[in-house]
Structures are given as structure tokens and as C-alpha cells.
């Protein structure tokens, strides 16, 4: 297990390096840089630009240096916790990011748990009652969830929550708690607002997961050991719990890797609609204003989050399934 864990950790490193290169290239792609456009707008408005500060920033982040050098500066800084400087907010990126990363992670984790709680029983029911009305009905609802664009669902839910429960519109907490230290009341307020994004982001993932779980469990149920167990006279519930379900569980854990990118994607869009204080709205704004270090940090964080999620799922899988940890490769 230790060897497997180590190896899995080592393979993460080149992946992360490659991701950082891609992120860097993307944030560099737009022509010009933030300082140039900033100077242009300032001059257009007839204001003077603090040349010293510009020159300082230019030097600090090496904007006049060749690409690869800029990349190295950025990447090494990133590893040491220096995320660069947000031009737009005139603050180091770490301070802008602040709580937002935490809230993004919170929403993602809660959404995954929600997805599991919903998908697991429904998936089992659908597989054991294949082609029943319940199966058809649940599959259909799942499909609707898959096909409805998240953002619109978010909008409607927001409206309904406001009309029927009086939840304040937008944000992840009532306005009076913003910038307050964490307290029980604040936590409750967050919980009150949290369920909308969680349900909205969860819908599409849940539907996909139900379908995959159903297909997997159906495959397992056809196998001969199940027939043997049944012939032996095992009660159906025990038969299901003892063998096929455990096999399907493996896949369930492995599926985090598939689920996570989707959830983070969904979370970003939904966050914009609900104006949640997560990474979504800021990411868009920073992309549009070419605030490259801020955008880069967000992209990098989201990618790292996904990679770590996949790592956890692989490690859990290795714990569950001895074949994987002995062979040292994930069974795909």
C-alpha cells in the first residue's frame, strides 16, 4: 500500500507541472498584458499613471522577460505560496483568494456527499427493479436533471427559495454576516443558503452516477456467483449486500475522479448566477480583465483540486481492492 501510495504521489507531479504549463500559456494568450491595457485606459481618461509603480510591477513579475523565465518565476513562486499580484485589486492574490477557495471546496465536498446520498439508493433500486415503473420513472427524472442547464435551474430555485422560504437572494450567507468572524448564527445562515447550489450542482452529477451505478450493478447481478448464492438459498437482501454491492462500491469510489471535474465546472457557473462568494464570479472577472495572476491561480487551484480528488479516489480504491494495490495500476 505504501509503495502504491508513493508511486501515485510521484505520478501526480508531472501531471501538475503539465497543468501549470497549460494554465500559464492560457493566461498569456491574450495579446498584451494587464499593465498595457491599464495604462491605455488610464491615459484615455486623462489620468496620469504612476510610472514608478508600473515599472516596479513590470520588474517584479518580469513582464518584460522571455516567456519561459516568466513561467519559472510564476511556478516557483506558486510552490512557495506566492501566488503573484492581482493588478485589478491591487493586492497579492493570496489575499484576494482568501475564503473563496475554502468555500469552493466546501460546496464541492457537500455536493459530492449529496450526490452519493441520492444516487446510491436510487441506483440500487433501479438495478434491482430493472424495467419496473419505478426504474423508468427515476431514470426519466435523472435524465431531466442531466438535460436541464444548471444555471437556469439555479435561477428558478433562487426565486422559489426567496418566495417560499424568504432566503435572501444571492450570496452564501445573509448580508449581515459577510466579513464577520465565524459563529453559529453565520454557520446556520450559510447552511440555509448552501442547499440551493448543492442541489443544483448535484442534479446533473447524480443522474450520471445513477446510470453508471445501475449499469455496473446489473453487470454484477448477472454473474454466476449471484446465481450460486441464490441457488444456495441466501435471502435476497443479504445476497445483494454481501457480494454484488461491494463490487459496485469499488466503482462508486473510482467514480469520484469522473464526478469532480463536472462538479467543479458546474459550481463555477452556478456560482456566477447565485453570486456566491466562491471562485466562479472572480474567475470570470479576472479572465475578462486579463488579471493574469489571479486567473492563473484560480485555474491552477481548480485543477489541483481535481487532481487531489482523483488521488483520493485512487487511494480509496486501492484500499478497497487488493488487486489494484498489488498490481500497482488502477484497473480501468
Amino acid at each position: 500500500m505504501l509503495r502504491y501510495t508513493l508511486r501515485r504521489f510521484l505520478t501526480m507531479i508531472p501531471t501538475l507541472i503539465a497543468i501549470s504549463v497549460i494554465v500559464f500559456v492560457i493566461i498569456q494568450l491574450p495579446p498584451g498584458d494587464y499593465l498595457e491595457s491599464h495604462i491605455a485606459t488610464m491615459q484615455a481618461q486623462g489620468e496620469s499613471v504612476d510610472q514608478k509603480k508600473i515599472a516596479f510591477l513590470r520588474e517584479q513579475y518580469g513582464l518584460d522577460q522571455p516567456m519561459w523565465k516568466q513561467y519559472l518565476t510564476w511556478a516557483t513562486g506558486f510552490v512557495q505560496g506566492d501566488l503573484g499580484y492581482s493588478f485589478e485589486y491591487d493586492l497579492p492574490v493570496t489575499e484576494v483568494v482568501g475564503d473563496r477557495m475554502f468555500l469552493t471546496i466546501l460546496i464541492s465536498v457537500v455536493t459530492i456527499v449529496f450526490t452519493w446520498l441520492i444516487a446510491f439508493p436510487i441506483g440500487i433500486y433501479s438495478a434491482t427493479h430493472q424495467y419496473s415503473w419505478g426504474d423508468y420513472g427515476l431514470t426519466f427524472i435523472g435524465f431531466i436533471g442531466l438535460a436541464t442547464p444548471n444555471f437556469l435551474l439555479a435561477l428558478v430555485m433562487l426565486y422559489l427559495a426567496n418566495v417560499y422560504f424568504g432566503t435572501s437572494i444571492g450570496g452564501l450567507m445573509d448580508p449581515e454576516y459577510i466579513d464577520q468572524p465565524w459563529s453559529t448564527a453565520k454557520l446556520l445562515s450559510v447552511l440555509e443558503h448552501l442547499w440551493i447550489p448543492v442541489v443544483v450542482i448535484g442534479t446533473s452529477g447524480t443522474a450520471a452516477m445513477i446510470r453508471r451505478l445501475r449499469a455496473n450493478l446489473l453487470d454484477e447481478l448477472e454473474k454466476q456467483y449471484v446465481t450460486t448464492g441464490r441457488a444456495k438459498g441466501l435471502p435476497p437482501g443479504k445476497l445483494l449486500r454481501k457480494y454484488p454491492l461491494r463490487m459496485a462500491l469499488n466503482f462508486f469510489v473510482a467514480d469520484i475522479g469522473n464526478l469532480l471535474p463536472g462538479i467543479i465546472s458546474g459550481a463555477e457557473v452556478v456560482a456566477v448566477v447565485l453570486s456566491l462568494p466562491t471562485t466562479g464570479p472572480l474567475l470570470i472577472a479576472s479572465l475578462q480583465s486579463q488579471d493574469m495572476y489571479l486567473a492563473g491561480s484560480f485555474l491552477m487551484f481548480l485543477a489541483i483540486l481535481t487532481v487531489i480528488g482523483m488521488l483520493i479516489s485512487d487511494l480509496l480504491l486501492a484500499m478497497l481492492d487488493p488487486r489494484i494495490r498489488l498490481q500497482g495500476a488502477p484497473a480501468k
Partner: protein
Amino acid sequence: MSESKTPHYVSREPFDPYSVEKLTPAQEELYLASQWRLMWWKLKRHKLALVSGFVLALFYLVAAFAEWVAPYDLHTRNARFIHAPPQAIHLFHEGTFVGPFVYGYNYKLNMSTLKREFTVNHKNVQPLRFFCEGDPYRFWGLFESRFHLFCPSANAMKYERAGQTFSLSGQGGTIFLLGTDRLGRDLLSRIIYGSRISLTIGLVGIAVSFILGIVIGGLAGYFGGWIDAVVQRVIEVLRSFPEIPLWMALSAVLPVTWSPLLIFLGITVILAMLDWTGLARAVRSKLMALREEDYCTAAQLLGARPRRIIGRHLLPGFMSHLIASASLSIPGMILGETALSFLGLGLRPPITSWGVLLNEAQNINVVALYPWLMLPVVPVVIIILAFNFFGDGLRDAADPYKT
């Protein structure tokens, strides 16, 4: 007579050594049918897929003849009908059959709330016209026409306010089956025109990612070795990116100065750039399995080049499978475009897609005041469901030899 038969009966009929293997005509048809024929038979049994296929065909037909089906032009503004709610089609007016018609609207600007208030005027009957002349358009940009499937009533619309009677010249009545937007443009017409972009973006995107997937996956699967290792790593990296943030980043790169058409192409390519990985993986694993087959070795020994072996001998073996899985990834692209345009990062007006239309519904006020502006989501949901069911059916049918 039966007594004359000995217990050891011998048939006098000529011996046919193949009698056991003889096929009934039905069986013969089944065994000799080509793969595509078998697929069609199997698909026919999948009712839901068939219905979905029909729905898809219908949508694409409407998209092709958008100018003709839509009652109004894409940009026709009705300044008097801003944010008008949908008009319902009625058949009976005060108990007598009139045929399909709509009631006209009375319009009043509420001076205290500044809200435009439309009330249905049950006196004003506006029968629909079919196969009629309406807004002029250039069909496919080729020739002028005014011909529409249905148009609003031609009677000059009576418009009463404070004892005065206004009549709108030209158009006559109105037909806003799905209401109008903030410029008084008919939503139904805009949805119909928008289907052109929304429906093709998935197809063009899938075509790009299909080519990428086959070429890259083909190389990796056929040659193996370091090419395979590199491709595998690249795929892994791309897959570990959350899709939408990466799409957002890439589409923010597209310069604002580009023409709408270039933006459209750019977005499609961006959508395809992340999508090919799944196809490439499928191609690779299939090729890995197939290249060990005897017929492949035979082709190699005969001196066929890799391109010919891959294209001629290997690909046809699982093309059907690829098409099926490609059709399953179209909905993702359509949703992706919708989400991007909704956020204002994708297509921009004057290009009209369902996502661009939904962009107007970004505000919570819309849900409260003008809920019909969210209607473009209905075709999105329908088309995505249809592609999903159709793709499922295709995938089942793609393996016709497996029962």
C-alpha cells in the same frame, strides 16, 4: 398401410448432407444482412431512440427552414410590444368556431410602477394566416421572399387609447406565441433562428473532435510505445481540468474584434479541444485489441502502410461504435455553448443561439416578471434528451451481433 412399414424405416428421398444446416428464408436474410442493415433492425426495436431520432430530424428541418417557419424576422422589433407575454391560440370565439386565432392585447403603461401592462382584449380577434406573406427575408442568403408558414392577422390592428383609435400600418395583428423580449422581438422566431447556431455548433464541434480523436487515438493505439505514453499523459492532464473554467479561460482569449463567424468557429474549436480525449481513448483501446488480429498481420506482410491498415482495415471495424459514442457527446457541447453564452463568454449578439437568448434571462427579475424569457431552455432540454436517447439506442445497435 402403416403395417407394411418395417420398424427400421428408411427414407427413399435423396440424401441432403446440408439438411441440418439449412436456413429458413428469414434466417438466411438475417445471416447475410450487412452490418449496417442489422444495426437498422436493432435500432428499429428501440422505440425511444426512434422517437428521439424523429424529434432530432424535425428540429434540424426547422433549423434549415428557419426563415420560413418563423413568423417574424430575427430582428423585427415591435416597439409597442415590449415584454409582451405569450399569446395563446384559441379556436372558439364566444362559442362559435373561428379557426386558430389569438386575442389582441391592450397596452397600458402603469405610471406608478412604470410597468408595461398587457391585458387581453377579448373583442379583438386576430385569426392566423397560413402560407402567407409576412416579414421579408433572404432565404439562405440567396433569394428574397416574404413567404411564411403562418403570420399574424392582416387586419390593421385596432389600438384604442383614450377614445382615439390607432391602427398600425403594414403588419396588422400580432402573433407572439412565446412572448417578446426587451426590444419587442418575437421570442418564438428568435428561438427558431437560434436553433441554427445551437444545433450546428454541436455537429461542427463533434466533427473536429472526431477527427482529432481518430488521428491521435489511432496513432497511439497503432504504434504504442512512446507515442502512446505521451498521448496518454496528455489525455490525463486534459481530463483533470474542470471543463467549464478551461472553456471560459479559452474563450476569454478570443479577441473582441473578431467577426461573429470567427468567434463561432473559435468557440467550436474550443469545445472540441477538450472533447476529443474520450474518443481518442476509445479508438486507442479498440486498435490495441484489433491490431493483433490475423488479418492485420496479413495486411502488414503484404506491405500495406500504417495509414492504409488503420483507415482501411481497422477503423471500419468499430466505426459504428465511434459514431454512437460521438452522438452521446454532442449534448455536452450544446450545454457547454449554452453555458458559455449565458455567462457572456461565448457567442455574442448579433449571433443568436439559445445560450445568447438565455443570457437575457440572467436576472432574477426576469424569473419574477417575464418568466417566458426562460423558454429557450425548453428546446435545449428536448434536444439534449433526444441526443441522449438516440445515442443510447445507436450504441446498443452498434453491436448488432451481441444480442
